[in-house]
């Protein structure tokens, strides 16, 4: 029998645990387990009084191991490790039994919950006896930071970090930074001009010496770990020499090829084959879209090259592969808008005068395709009646179950702009619920009500051009139930705007895989904790900011960008971080040199020494998954804090009440 002296502490967590688990019974029962010298239950173990209880026992009763049965280790493992450390006990000689999330909250069967709690406590006691004292591993933090995505969240994070004096690589997929915010006309509820408030920040990025801006570029590979990432970036060929280009734009004027701009103009306007998405683009250098360029497609033209005053056009340019060394990464990759072609009954794509909200943003923008004129698809007719349909692709289990949070407010903004630009137009908002929940939002709703917008409570069923009654001919007919009246109705209008929701980027899962993150069911990146750690991720050293985490408006995206920057700066200024010592180690004596483990390691952390015919784990590279430990046929690899003995003992403890007699005697003797 082991000499270890174990203390067991069972937490009530108010009634969170004690409401379902008979905690006193568990505690009294645990007192009788081998090696347990003290067992107590307490109202809140995480309180300072609860922790002092443990500290006192360690000192006075000479505890060598501690078990706390409370909540998830993801909540309070750190708390109790620190408690042990304060009392002079190595923090890894502690084990937590999660009898709250995994037990009391998951059932209302008191008997079964108590039995399960006993099993988990028994398992923890048996396991902790085999624990080894371990030391956290210090890791130095490279002070350079990678920020992926140059929308308002990424720009904010980049400027915060750069202004603090550290270097930032800002990678943007499009030719210019600015993101969705650069496409918008006014921002709700203040009606600031979106571009007017964003472009100064974009210029700051361009001029900041601490920021290396890599636009028209994408991250391909991420290797390493917190403090020491190596990132491979593909800087796509622009076919414009950035050293020579002055950004004069003559090439764009002279380019004979015009195509629909599906990205910046949301399909509502055109651009050239050599283009810059918008006049204030940062960087100012254009790119050639080879898929539409006449020279790249047919081998002749070169108009841009002929007219370029500085010989900056370079058709021979190649993609560049850059390797960046960074200590931290911020992902601010943004969102996509819902494609309403997926809801055929709203007619988008078939009915000319059905527009998306993004198209409408471009339309009302003075710099947009119509110069700010609100017109039908024919480009000339001013609509006399406009229906704005909320929740398109949102709050709908057939598409996205989530509420996109911004659509109510931007729809209200559209109403306001319509009243302003087309004073005699009748505007209708079709809504399920108006969600105006942030500062000055409700007031804005009231203002739009007073401006004369007609609000109709009912989710639109369909938009059609099939006239049924006189007065409907040549119009778009919106069919809906006015739920406050309880009647089905039809409303003929000239224009329909679909307030499309926000979705995760179409490639968010691939991006998550590159960076080793998790995605929600709907593709948004998962934060470390939805309330207390919203910009951190499960992967150390990688933060997320903005709408890649979930639908949000500009102020929240900015706040998240700044929060992520604060996280990064905190790590940079610390210089080193302490890492969990959960790492694999190969016992050279036992290693047979079979090399099975070599190829299993996803981090290439295992090297083989030809001379000695043994494998060795490079601790700095190992991430502690344990794949090699499980596969070693000679049991030569030890996974610290998850050793075979620890897990085996835990299994035995878990099954204390069902073990067959033989096994009982075999292990009970230890």
């Amino acid at each position: 029998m082991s000499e270890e002296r174990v203390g067991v502490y069972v937490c009530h967590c108010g009634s969170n645990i004690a409401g379902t688990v008979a905690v006193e019974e568990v505690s009294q029962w645990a007192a009788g387990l081998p090696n347990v010298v003290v067992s107590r239950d307490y109202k809140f173990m995480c309180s300072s009084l609860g922790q002092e209880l443990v500290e006192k026992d360690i000192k006075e009763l000479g505890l060598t191991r501690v078990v706390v049965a409370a909540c998830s280790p993801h909540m309070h493992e750190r708390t109790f490790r620190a408690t042990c450390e304060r009392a002079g006990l190595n923090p890894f000689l502690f084990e937590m039994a999660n009898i709250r999330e995994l037990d009391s909250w998951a059932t209302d069967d008191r008997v079964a919950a108590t039995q399960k709690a006993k099993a988990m406590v028994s398992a923890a006691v048996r396991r902790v006896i085999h624990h080894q004292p371990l030391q956290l591993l210090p890791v130095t933090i490279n002070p350079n930071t990678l920020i992926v995505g140059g929308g308002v969240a990424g720009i904010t994070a980049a400027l915060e970090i750069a202004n603090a004096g550290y270097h930032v690589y800002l990678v943007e997929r499009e030719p210019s930074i600015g993101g969705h915010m650069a496409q918008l006309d006014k921002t709700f509820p203040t009606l600031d001009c979106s571009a007017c408030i964003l472009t100064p920040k974009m210029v700051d990025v361009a001029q900041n010496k601490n920021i290396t801006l890599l636009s028209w570029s994408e991250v391909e590979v991420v290797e390493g770990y917190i403090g020491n990432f190596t990132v491979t970036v593909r800087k796509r060929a622009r076919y414009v020499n950035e050293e020579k280009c002055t950004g004069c734009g003559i090439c764009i004027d002279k380019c004979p090829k015009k195509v629909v701009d599906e990205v910046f103009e949301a399909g509502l306007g055109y651009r050239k084959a050599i283009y810059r998405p918008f006049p204030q683009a940062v960087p100012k250098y254009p790119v050639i879209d080879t898929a539409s360029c006449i020279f790249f497609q047919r081998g002749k033209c070169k108009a841009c090259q002929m007219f370029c005053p500085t010989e900056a056009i370079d058709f021979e340019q190649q993609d560049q592969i850059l390797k960046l060394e960074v200590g931290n990464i911020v992902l601010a990759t943004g969102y996509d808008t819902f494609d309403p072609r997926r809801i055929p009954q709203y007619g988008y794509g078939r009915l000319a005068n059905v527009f998306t909200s993004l198209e409408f943003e471009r339309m009302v923008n003075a710099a947009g395709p119509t110069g700010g004129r609100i017109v039908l698809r024919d480009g000339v007719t001013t609509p006399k009646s406009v229906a704005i349909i909320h929740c398109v692709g949102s709050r709908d289990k057939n598409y996205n179950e989530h509420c996109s949070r911004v659509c109510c407010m931007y729809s209200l903004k559209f109403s306001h702009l319509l009243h302003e630009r087309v004073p005699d137009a009748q505007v209708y908002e079709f809504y399920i619920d108006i969600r105006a929940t942030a500062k000055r939002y409700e007031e804005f709703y009231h203002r739009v009500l007073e401006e004369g917008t007609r609000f109709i409570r009912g989710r639109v069923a369909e938009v059609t051009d099939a006239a049924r009654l006189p007065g409907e001919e040549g119009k778009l007919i919106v069919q809906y139930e006015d739920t406050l009246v309880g009647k089905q109705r039809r409303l003929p209008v000239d224009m329909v705007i679909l307030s499309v929701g926000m979705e995760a980027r179409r490639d968010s899962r691939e991006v998550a895989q590159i960076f080793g993150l998790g995605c929600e069911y709907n593709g948004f990146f998962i934060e470390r904790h939805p309330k207390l750690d919203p910009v951190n991720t499960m992967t150390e050293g990688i933060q997320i900011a903005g709408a890649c985490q979930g639908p949000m408006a500009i102020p929240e995206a900015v706040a998240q960008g700044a929060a992520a920057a604060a996280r990064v700066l905190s790590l940079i200024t610390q210089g080193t971080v302490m890492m969990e010592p959960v790492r694999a180690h190969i016992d050279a004596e036992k290693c047979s040199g079979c090399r099975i483990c070599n190829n299993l390691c996803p981090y290439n952390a295992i090297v083989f020494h030809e001379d000695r015919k043994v494998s060795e784990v490079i601790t700095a590279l190992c991430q502690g998954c344990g794949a090699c430990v499980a596969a070693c046929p000679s049991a030569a690899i030890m996974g610290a804090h998850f050793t075979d003995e620890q897990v085996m003992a835990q299994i035995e403890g878990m099954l204390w009440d069902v073990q067959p007699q033989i096994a009982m005697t075999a292990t009970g003797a230890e």
Partner: protein
Amino acid sequence: MTAYATTARAPTFLEEVIARTPGEPHLERCIQCGTCGGSCPSGADMEHTPRGLFALINAGLREQALCSNTPWYCVSCYYCTVRCPQQIHITDVMYTLKRMAIDEGYYTESTARDAPEFSKTFIDFVESNGRSFELGLATAYHLRYRPLNAVGMAPMALGMLRRGRMDLTPTKIKGIKQLQAILNKAKELGGVK
């Protein structure tokens, strides 16, 4: 069929409707958006839109809900079902409400009181022949319940006969006894559920 049976209290009307609908109709999810009411091809003529009817059910207004002509005006086109953002099996719920209205005698108070009679007449022919019988259905139903209409419909029936689109006598399947045994067993098992 959600688990109201596990609670000690008596089921609410909403829970009853759910329990009598096959599968998981998810009526409890309704957010009152009105997509169903806007989509329904006969919605303009209903006393309550489906959404309105669900509000009555949720409020426990049994008599009002079961007297409504709404379920009887349902044409089973499934627009509401495929468009419902909460994926409620609305068409199935309509069938349930029809059965409940018949069971509890409310349908006679509905403005659509002929509809169940049509269904019953139809079924009578199927149960006795194994096949439906249009002429018999038309004459039996119209003579029994809509004598005035029967006159108006006569030219059409004649047209059907002249074009060889209607039989004068019903077709009977060979296994009619077997079918009746099956249906009787089903009635016995399911009561009038």
